[in-house]
């Protein structure tokens, strides 16, 4: 059993607004006839970032939001004592498609597409510690949190940022073709967790799913955000708007990952569960 990390801060942007408090009661009703809800492109007054793909800028905005939540400056996360882990199911799709369709990737050769978001975050905030990119839906983020715990337990760094970004706008027609829109609207999101050494325990388990996926719970309010969903779940827990996430679960590609996290939860809430299962 791993020592659980402690959640210090969360930065969260979704197409519904900033933070979990912005979520509607019911995503489907709130979305109306929109099947994809875009986050747009956050404004950064920096020449270097003018040609940076939108998904990367969203990653930067999520980290800025996390710093604001922590009331910390950039210097607090710069350097080799900060690890950076990124999770995404499909944010690389936009850059890849641009390259395939137009024969040009703009500023980016999209060979780097999955790694471009954390690369830009590392460059912008001067993060030079341990580093990995996990591909997939909610299980990828849960595994990134688990991997963060291994890094912290091994004292390979003092804090780990777990970043997740999902964009859909540029590939909306493909997602529609892929029939991923049944049930919930696709909601763009970008979130970042600041994890530090904690006191509880953390366990990761995985199994291959049987039967129908759970379509209720957090996704009913949020819509589909793939890898961002666990970040939203943690933000909601923190804000007291959801049950305590002793067990975060998420499904993707026919398998379900579960993360059992005993701290930093209040003892009174133990035994409850916040299911973040999504379809994949």
């Amino acid at each position, binding site marked *: *059993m*791993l020592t659980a990390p402690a959640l210090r801060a969360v930065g969260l942007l979704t197409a519904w607004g900033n933070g979990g408090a912005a979520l509607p009661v019911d995503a489907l009703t709130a979305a109306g006839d929109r099947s994809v809800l875009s986050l747009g492109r956050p404004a950064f007054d920096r020449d270097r970032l003018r040609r940076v793909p939108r998904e990367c800028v969203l990653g930067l905005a999520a980290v800025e939001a996390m710093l604001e939540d922590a009331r910390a400056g950039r210097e607090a996360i710069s350097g*080799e004592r900060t690890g950076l882990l990124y999770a995404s*199911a*499909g944010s*690389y*799709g936009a850059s*890849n*498609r641009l*390259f*395939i*369709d137009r*024969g*040009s*990737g703009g500023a*980016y*050769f*999209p*060979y*780097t597409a*999955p*790694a*471009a978001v*954390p*690369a*830009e975050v*590392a*460059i912008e*905030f001067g*993060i*030079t*510690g*341990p*580093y*990995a*990119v*996990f*591909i*997939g839906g909610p299980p*990828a983020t849960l*595994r990134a949190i*688990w*991997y963060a715990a*291994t890094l912290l337990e*091994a*004292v*390979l760094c003092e804090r780990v940022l777990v970043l997740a970004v999902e964009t859909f706008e540029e590939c909306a027609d*493909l997602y529609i*073709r*892929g*029939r991923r829109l049944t049930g919930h609207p696709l909601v763009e999101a970008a979130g970042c967790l600041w994890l530090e050494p904690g006191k509880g325990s953390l366990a*990761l388990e*995985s*199994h*291959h799913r049987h039967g129908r996926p759970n379509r209720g719970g957090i996704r009913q309010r949020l819509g589909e955000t793939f890898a961002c969903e666990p970040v939203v779940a943690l933000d909601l827990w923190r804000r007291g708007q959801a049950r305590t996430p002793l067990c975060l679960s998420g499904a*993707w*590609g*026919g*398998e379900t*990952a579960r993360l059992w996290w005993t701290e930093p939860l209040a003892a009174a809430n133990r035994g409850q569960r916040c299911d973040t299962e999504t379809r994949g």
Partner: protein
Amino acid sequence: MRRPERIAIQAAGLITPIGQDVDAFWSSLLTGASGISPIERFPVADLRVGRGGEIKRLSRVKEWRHVPDCRATRLLISAADELCTQAGLRPLPLGADRVAVVLGTALGGVEEGEKALGGDRRIRRLRGGLYDSPAHNLARWLGARGPVITVSTACASGATAIGVGADLIRHGVADWVVAGGYDILCRFVMRGFDALRSLTREEIRPFDRRRSGLLLGEAAALVLLMREDEGGPQRLGSLLGYGSAADGHHISAPDPEGRGLERAIAAAMREAGIQPSDIDFVSAHGTGTPLNDRIETSVLKRALGAPAYKIPCNSIKAPMGHTMGAAATLEAIMCLLASRHGQIPATLNLEEADPECDLDYMLGGPRAARPGISLSTSLGFGGCNAALILEGGAC
């Protein structure tokens, strides 16, 4: 800090342009055979460079029924077929839910995405374009029902996969992990590297004064990881340490000082509990680009100190091209084969050493030596750096 337990590397399986099994791969490395050829599988006439390490025919697996028509998946299954033969993995000898698959890739199923955008409207083609799709296909073929994880740290992906896989075992998430990397040659990646003008029209010449760039190749390479006390006497070797670090410098260029790679090497040595003087052999990233090889040389000097000059160091990218997500796993396997066979392959096409690359880069033929502990380094676009510390198994 308690040192992480060593992880046994029980067996390997691979498919490369210079051999479709471990023995053929090893033999080609020793004899200096080249797998570089004109690319035939897709059009390249509009590109500056149309050569690479293309696998012309997948000869190992004869029956592709129930396997998706996805080249990345088929390369993986070819490699897995050898791994299964070596390790007795099919049927799985232990609970399927205790067997994990962790794969590294820079491109995933991008060719499937290209086809989907090019008019193939089959849903499975579109799903195949996801970067984690080939890993799920491999897990299904293996019958593995533990975690299926895809990591993508560009050219360091194959090392990241081994590092993450080892942690799954150390922390009890899985008992066995099939870990490794893959990537295929396709128009997408050839066009991209062609646009960057980083492909050479000449041979790949790592650490040579005349080096002028890289060529790409395709491959899949897998290893079976398990607890040290569960590994049999015929194991290939052990993973002692893994380290990673971000450059935080530039999206496509390495840090000019190579500080990220230096940190990754230091972290891997720390985890392994070794000193630079313990290292017998270095498998360098060695892409053959002017910048990479110079930076890597300076990093090795700083990270290893005076012993760096005495440690044999090679690059095996010249005969296969840069196999991207597969490269680090192939290089790790090569390190362990060198230990098993008592020979270190030379750096192919290195003829005139660059004065700025003045380490023992294995000019000439293979060298009789049986490295105990090896260091394998990887650098990737986006500033990903990774290092593995490996120890050969019993002879």
